[in-house]
Structure formats: structure tokens, C-alpha cells
């Protein structure tokens, strides 16, 4: 059901000038930072712990716990991860463009809470408008006294640098992002150490938080962690942005109370997705970014709840939901997702670099009508090399989770739509007759 939960991170989106300092101040902006600065840093951390805020980047790690792991040191850093690139995820992009001050205020609150004096906002390079708005907001925040030396006349000082990315999906992985911020290729770092909180940017302890996580902090400080935790249920507290796309009548980014709303609500409610395009029939949906195993119509009544989706064998991940209808070709989707991972592999680990490429080539030939019946077993065999057992969550064979995420969509597509693969192979064509076909993009 749709609840009457307040809009938290999107509350200013109805204003066309929501990105300006004037609008931000007129709508209560920077009050939370003033309040936080009157509190002890530990008290701010307590509020965030009470809120039980789960990280919104994809892994869903508790934000408060991440902060508590920061190794005490002379120099520490905060990095805000705004490199949103998970296919079909378009929430951070909106937050950056529409409410950059909220991110700056959230970052300042986080920095104060954990005692950091130097923060970076890593913004995906393709977000040119977002970079301009963040930079402008940063300039305004300095001028207003919300950044820089002795913020709002308190003893706390913070500098924020807006850093542009240059086009690489793997920068979303936090250790890769740190490497990129150090001016190198975005190669994920070997673990352990598992967390940048121990060894991060320039080897110093570093907190890396997602944009949406950071954007929730002003509301939490203003209204209290308990008020946030009162929304949602279980470990999935508060509200969350769900980016809905694909074969749905009203694609969009919706802020919804966690747990209480279901996938059925998101996809079919007239105020949200509004059902399948042209009144068609739902075939399947991807519940949390293209790394996630797919769900069928029988799982529509699952709540938008991290634990519930995990138990059902997938993940809420980055909060993006892609809807497939009867016109969507499962082979083509699996091929395109695999092609993405193969192209974005950083190339350090053999299973990912080679396996991703082989999988892409095999899926492409099936979609193009050159497949063999033995290809289905071959695909699963290669998947097994990438993530032994092809289970969920995947077994790791590589430095980061990119490679072992590749089998999810392939295993889902073959598991749910095996006859569709067989038809491609037997008739030597895509039965859905997609014009242009995969050939148009598989050179």
C-alpha cells in the first residue's frame, strides 16, 4: 500500500529552483547542520544509529556501523560516492541535480559526526549539469559559512572538493573510487583490508558514503533517529528512492516508505508505475540493479524490504526496478547486461575479464540466431567458474564483486525462460522479432 510517510530526500523536488541556496534556506536548509554543531559528535552518531540507516549505494551496510569502524588517526577523509552507474539506477543523479545543498549539508553533518575535516564529493563525469550544480552549491555554501573555517562560528572546519569522474562503472566500488580519486586507473583494491575505514584515501582512514545515504542525514538530525526508524519495518527503516524503468506506463524515481510498499504497488499503483505499457502483461522484473537475480510475477507481493528480498534470493541493491513485459526478449536482456559487465570489467582478474567476454559472445550468437543447444550448459559452466555454485549471494572468485555478479542475470534468464533460449537456437532467430536485433549493437 501507499503510506503517508513524508518525503525526506525529495522534499524540495516540487520547486523548480530546488538547487539554489535561496530555495534551500527558504525550505529549512542548513538548520540541521546548525543543530548538529550544537550537539556532541557522539550524539549525532547516536541519532544515525537510532535511525538504523542502511547505506543506499547497493550493499545496504548500516551507515552508523560504517562510521564506527573509522580508525582514529591524525588525518581522515570522507568521500561521498556520487558515481551512480548501475544500469537503470537514476536516483543519485536526481539528488545531485535537484538538491545539491542537501548533499553538502549531509556531508558536513557526517564529517562533523566522525571528525573529518576534508571531504570529497565524487560525482560521475557524465553528470555535467550535476557537476555544475554541485560546484555552484559548494561555492554558495562557503559564502554562507556552511563550509570552510569555523562553520557557523563553531570550532568545526570542513573543506569539500567536488571531484569529477571520467566514465567508469567500477568507480562505484569504494576502493576503486578511492584509486580513481588518487589519479589512477579505477582498480578495486585487494582485500583485506576490507574497509577503507581502516586504510582508504592516501592510506588514511576514510568513510565512503553513497549520495542518498548522505542526503538523508539532515532530516534525521532535524527530526531524530527515532522518527526515521518509525518509518519502514525491521532493519529496513525510513524511506528509499526506487527508480522504476522498463516496460511500465509511468517510469520514474519514487520515494517510498520501506517494507510497507510492495513491488506490486510500485509497478501497478496508478500513482506510481501505473502498470505495464499498453495494458500488457508482466513477464519478469529485476528488483535491485542488473547485478540482482530476476523475479517473476509470483514475487510481486514482496515488500520493498532489504531482508525480505534477500531471503527471496535477490537484493534491493541500488533500488532500481526494471520491468519486462511479454515483448521483452530474455536472451537479449541477458546479453546486454552481460555485455555491460564485460565492457566495464577493469581487467585485473581473469574470471571476470575472460569469463565476461566469453559469456557475452555466447549470448550474442544465441540472440543472433547462431546458437547451439550445448551453449546453455556452456554458459552455466562459465558462470560456475565466475561464481562457484551460481548461488545467491554469489561466491567470490575475484578482487571485487563485479565479475561474480555477471551470472545472476544469465542464471535467471535461463532458469525462468529456458524455452525462449531453445526457441532462439532452434529457429535461428529471435522469436520476438526485435527489429534491428542485437546485431545493431554487437560489432
Amino acid at each position: 500500500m501507499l503510506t503517508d510517510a513524508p518525503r525526506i530526500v525529495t522534499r524540495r523536488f516540487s520547486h523548480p529552483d530546488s538547487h539554489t541556496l535561496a530555495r534551500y534556506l527558504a525550505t529549512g536548509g542548513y538548520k540541521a547542520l546548525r543543530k548538529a554543531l550544537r550537539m556532541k559528535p557522539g550524539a549525532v552518531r547516536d541519532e544515525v544509529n537510532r535511525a538504523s540507516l542502511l547505506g543506499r549505494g547497493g550493499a545496504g551496510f548500516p551507515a552508523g556501523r560504517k562510521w564506527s569502524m573509522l580508525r582514529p588517526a591524525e588525518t581522515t577523509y570522507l568521500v561521498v560516492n556520487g558515481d551512480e552507474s548501475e544500469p537503470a539506477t537514476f536516483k543519485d543523479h536526481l539528488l545531485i541535480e535537484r538538491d545539491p545543498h542537501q548533499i553538502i549539508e549531509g556531508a558536513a553533518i557526517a564529517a562533523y559526526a566522525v571528525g573529518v575535516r576534508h571531504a570529497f564529493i565524487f560525482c560521475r563525469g557524465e553528470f555535467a549539469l550535476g557537476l555544475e550544480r554541485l560546484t555552484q552549491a559548494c561555492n554558495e555554501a562557503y559564502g554562507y559559512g556552511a563550509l570552510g573555517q569555523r562553520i557557523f562560528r563553531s570550532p568545526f572546519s570542513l573543506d569539500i572538493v567536488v571531484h569529477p569522474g571520467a566514465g567508469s562503472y567500477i568507480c562505484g566500488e569504494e576502493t576503486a573510487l578511492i584509486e580513481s580519486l588518487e589519479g589512477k586507473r579505477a582498480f578495486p583494491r585487494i582485500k583485506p583490508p576490507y574497509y577503507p575505514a581502516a586504510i582508504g584515501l592516501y592510506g588514511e582512514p576514510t568513510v565512503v558514503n553513497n549520495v542518498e545515504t548522505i542526503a538523508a542525514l539532515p532530516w534525521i538530525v532535524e527530526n531524530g533517529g527515532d522518527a526515521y526508524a518509525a518509518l519502514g519495518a525491521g532493519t529496513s527503516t525510513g524511506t528509499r528512492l526506487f527508480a522504476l524503468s522498463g516496460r511500465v506506463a509511468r517510469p520514474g524515481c519514487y520515494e517510498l516508505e520501506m517494507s510497507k510498499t510492495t513491488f506490486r504497488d510500485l509497478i501497478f499503483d496508478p500513482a506510481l508505475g501505473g502498470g505495464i505499457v499498453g495494458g500488457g502483461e508482466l513477464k519478469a522484473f529485476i528488483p535491485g540493479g542488473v547485478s540482482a537475480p530476476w523475479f517473476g510475477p509470483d514475487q510481486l507481493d514482496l515488500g520493498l524490504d532489504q531482508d525480505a528480498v534477500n531471503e527471496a534470493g535477490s537484493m534491493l541493491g541500488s533500488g532500481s526496478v526494471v520491468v519486462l513485459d511479454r515483448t521483452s526478449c530474455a536472451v537479449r536482456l541477458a546479453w546486454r547486461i552481460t555485455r555491460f559487465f564485460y565492457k566495464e570489467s577493469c581487467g585485473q582478474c581473469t574470471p571476470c575479464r575472460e569469463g565476461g567476454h566469453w559469456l557475452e559472445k555466447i549470448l550474442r550468437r544465441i540472440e543472433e540466431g547462431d546458437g547451439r543447444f550445448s551453449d546453455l550448459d556452456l554458459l552455466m559452466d562459465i558462470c560456475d567458474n565466475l561464481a562457484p555454485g551460481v548461488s545467491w549471494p554469489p561466491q567470490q572468485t575475484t578482487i571485487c564483486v563485479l565479475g561474480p555478479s555477471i551470472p545472476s542475470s544469465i542464471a535467471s534468464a535461463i532458469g525462468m525462460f529456458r524455452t525462449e533460449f531453445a526457441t532462439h537456437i532452434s529457429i535461428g532467430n529471435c522469436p520476438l522479432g526485435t527489429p534491428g536485433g542485437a546485431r545493431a549493437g554487437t560489432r
Partner: protein
Amino acid sequence: MTAHFSAENRSRAEALVALYPKPRSALVPLCHLAQSQDGWLSAEAMEEIAELCGVTPAEVYGTATFYDMLHCERVGRHVIAICTNVACLLAGAYELVAYAERRLGIRCGQTTGDGEFTLEEAECLAGCDGPPCVQVNHRFVKARDPASFDALIAGLRRGEYEGEIPRHGTLCRVERAVALPGAATPRTRRSGG
């Protein structure tokens, strides 16, 4: 010392380096700066970036070639990127790519003979509620079917998007107004180095 950046961009470059605890962190921002000056990333620019970051030109090249947005070869004045990832694929992105290739007479990755247009197939651009997503020089435009794509090309040729869409390479037109405390000013850094 190589001098590829204009005097103005050289001081911008030094200000960028001063934003980071270690100069190498400015490598990607400096590559963007070079692209904003030249439209692409030349070997001469990479030499100067190497000097500014304290690394070798090969390290700059090796890093730059990792990233999709950094072009070490000349590209068109307008780089048109069409996303073909899942949400856009379901909305006919490959059909749009095929049309764009016919319309411009080039394949993805190529540039028209007059140097006006480079066509690229992009990964998800995070605009999945209005597919298929098309960017020109990283600015979102509406070109979802052949007719609107034709209108876009005609508009770009006529210069109707001047101001709205800067030449390829210009990423962020807002400059940081505040230096960091204790950071060397561009002038002192220059005389020192």
C-alpha cells in the same frame, strides 16, 4: 618545460592541483581541463599534466585510456552518445542507433568527415525514465525517434544549441571560487616549480 595549456588554463590547472593533498589526484580533472581547451586529450597536454602531477606521460596516458570520457584521439565538435543499456534497449535504443548511423553515415565510434559529429554507444546514463537517453557533449537532449534525431542534428548544425551545449570537452562551466587554506597559491607554486 612543455607549455600546452594557455596561460589562463595553466593557472586553473595549478589551482586544481592545489585542491588535493597529493598532486596526482588532479590527474583526471586536468584531463578534463585539457579536453575543455582542445576538445580532446593530446600527447602534448598529457606531457604537461604529467609534469603538474609529478608522474610520467605514460602514466597519464595509461590512466586516461582507462576512462571512457577521456579521448586520446580527436573527436567531433559534438559527441552524440546514445544509451543502449537495459531501460533504453527496451525503448528501442538499438533501432535509434541504427538510424543515427544511417543518418550520419558513420558507425558508433566514428566521426563525420567534417569533424562535426562523433557517435557513441553509451552505458546507462541514469536517465531511465525518459528512454532512450541521448547526450550531446554530456548534456541530455530529447531525440527518441528518427524525427527528433533529425531535428537535433539540424539544430546542432545551425548552432541552435550554442550556450546550452558547449563544445565537446567542456564539462563543468562553474569554477570553484574558494581556495583551500594553506594551499600554495598558483603564483608561488609556479615560481617554486
